């Protein structure tokens, strides 16, 4: 349906941008004779000689993005900066679009824009394969408060250490850096080990474990989106308790039992999968539950 098509297009765009934007920059620099082994002092001089202009139209990744003069900053970056003392009003303005969207749509970033999704999809595919082979990996779950505790740890360590540490463990930021490195320097760095580790966790330890229990960005989006009025609603009459929606959900939500919390990313997979079309995404009373205490059986 349209919703899924739209969502997947945004995901594809976001993932592609991580490669396309650095590649475009490199092409600009290379095409103008700049790039490695070139020099270009003084902006106006360099521009007149064909080196790219001072302010490129698009620069960055979803972590920190500027498009035609508009600054967009991931809220995790903004909060970290405010806490480490590097904040300013410009920070607040840059995170505002995300904050507003999160307030309206909850944890939408994870479903619509997060470049970790392909890695997660690969891990899920591998899990499914292993399960079919009879070697199904476990799905260990820690306390549901874990992601918020981790978020707090990261922020605490950042304040204590005087450094913005979140981008070192936040998969979208890491992916942005590693893809940039691949494009510009022809290789990935040690940071990609974190992504590999995340993939292994998601495959062998816990289904969507990183997204559900570890990702500090996800936790922050959940906090911001706790009062989101857009949510999954179930038609009790149409529902026949088949449980397909619960199976399909990656994020430990239970639409069948109305057991949703802030972890729902509004991906709409449950809606699409319901054979009775009993679910829909609509505005209504917010879920307003940060995390549910009871785990799934």
């Amino acid at each position, binding site marked *: 349906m349209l919703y899924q098509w739209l969502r997947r297009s945004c995901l594809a765009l976001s993932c592609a941008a991580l490669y396309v934007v650095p590649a475009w920059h490199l092409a600009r620099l290379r095409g103008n004779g700049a790039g490695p082994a070139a020099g*270009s002092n003084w*902006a*106006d001089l360099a521009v007149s000689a064909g080196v790219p202009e001072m302010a490129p139209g698009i620069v*960055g990744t979803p972590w920190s993005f500027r498009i035609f003069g508009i600054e967009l900053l991931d809220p995790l970056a903004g909060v970290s900066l405010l806490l480490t003392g590097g904040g300013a009003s410009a920070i607040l303005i840059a995170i505002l679009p995300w904050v507003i969207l999160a307030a309206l749509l909850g944890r939408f970033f994870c479903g619509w824009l997060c470049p970790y999704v392909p890695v997660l999809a690969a891990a899920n595919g591998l899990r499914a394969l292993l399960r079919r082979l009879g070697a199904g990996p476990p799905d260990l779950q820690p306390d549901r408060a874990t992601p918020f505790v981790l978020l707090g740890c990261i922020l605490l360590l950042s304040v204590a250490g005087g450094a913005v540490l979140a981008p*070192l463990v936040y998969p979208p930021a890491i992916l942005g850096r590693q893809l940039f490195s691949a494009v510009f320097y022809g290789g990935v760095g040690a940071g990609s080990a974190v992504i590999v580790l995340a993939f292994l966790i998601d495959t062998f330890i816990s289904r969507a474990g990183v997204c559900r229990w570890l990702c500090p960005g996800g936790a922050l989006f959940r906090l911001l989106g706790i009062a989101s009025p857009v949510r999954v609603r179930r038609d009790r009459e149409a529902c026949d308790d088949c449980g397909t929606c619960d199976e399909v959900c990656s994020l430990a939500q239970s639409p069948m039992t109305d057991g949703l919390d802030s972890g729902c990313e509004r991906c709409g997979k449950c809606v699409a999968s319901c054979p009775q079309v009993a679910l829909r995404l609509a505005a209504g009373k917010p879920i307003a539950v940060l995390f549910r205490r009871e785990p799934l059986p």
Partner: protein
Amino acid sequence: MSDGGKRLPPITRRGLLVGGVALGGGVLSLISPPPAARLRPPGALDEPDFTRRCIRCLRCAEVCPPGAIRFATSFGMAGSDTPYIEARSRPCTLCMRCTQVCPSGALAPIDADRTVVGAKVRMGHPRLDRQKCIAWQESGECRACYYVCPYAGAAVRLDGRQLGPVFDREACVGCGQCEEACPEAALAITIDPRNGAPS
């Protein structure tokens, strides 16, 4: 579900394990000795403020025309994935584009004007080893550093019978073009980063 006693349920134990590992690892990484100080891109704030502000977005590296800005992941998280410049292989060309795209002000914006850059940019301090310098040792004919210096005459001048380079710490912006130009047989120049001990 819990076994009715003082033991915590498995999920809570797992949660505490994860949290504990994270906290422990984080503390370890923060207290581990920092890597050798490196040249920061121009406009960088002084060290505690720089690490406080840099969000490791690497937009600065993306727009750097000579590809001088690099980053590296290290266990010591405080400096990990922050941008730096290795002048000997690829020096800064003072185009100031990086300062225009830093979202958090870790690199303060600086106009790409010769005078402004000369006054405001201080990436590091030049250090010449006269024992290695071809001009001073009169082992050949070389004035490469003087010719590439964007502030020749102020940051570096030629002196003495040998017309050997003499650097002025106060006037040097620390771009490192001299360090790169210095012949491989000499490698007599090092730019010591402004923030921290020489590497």
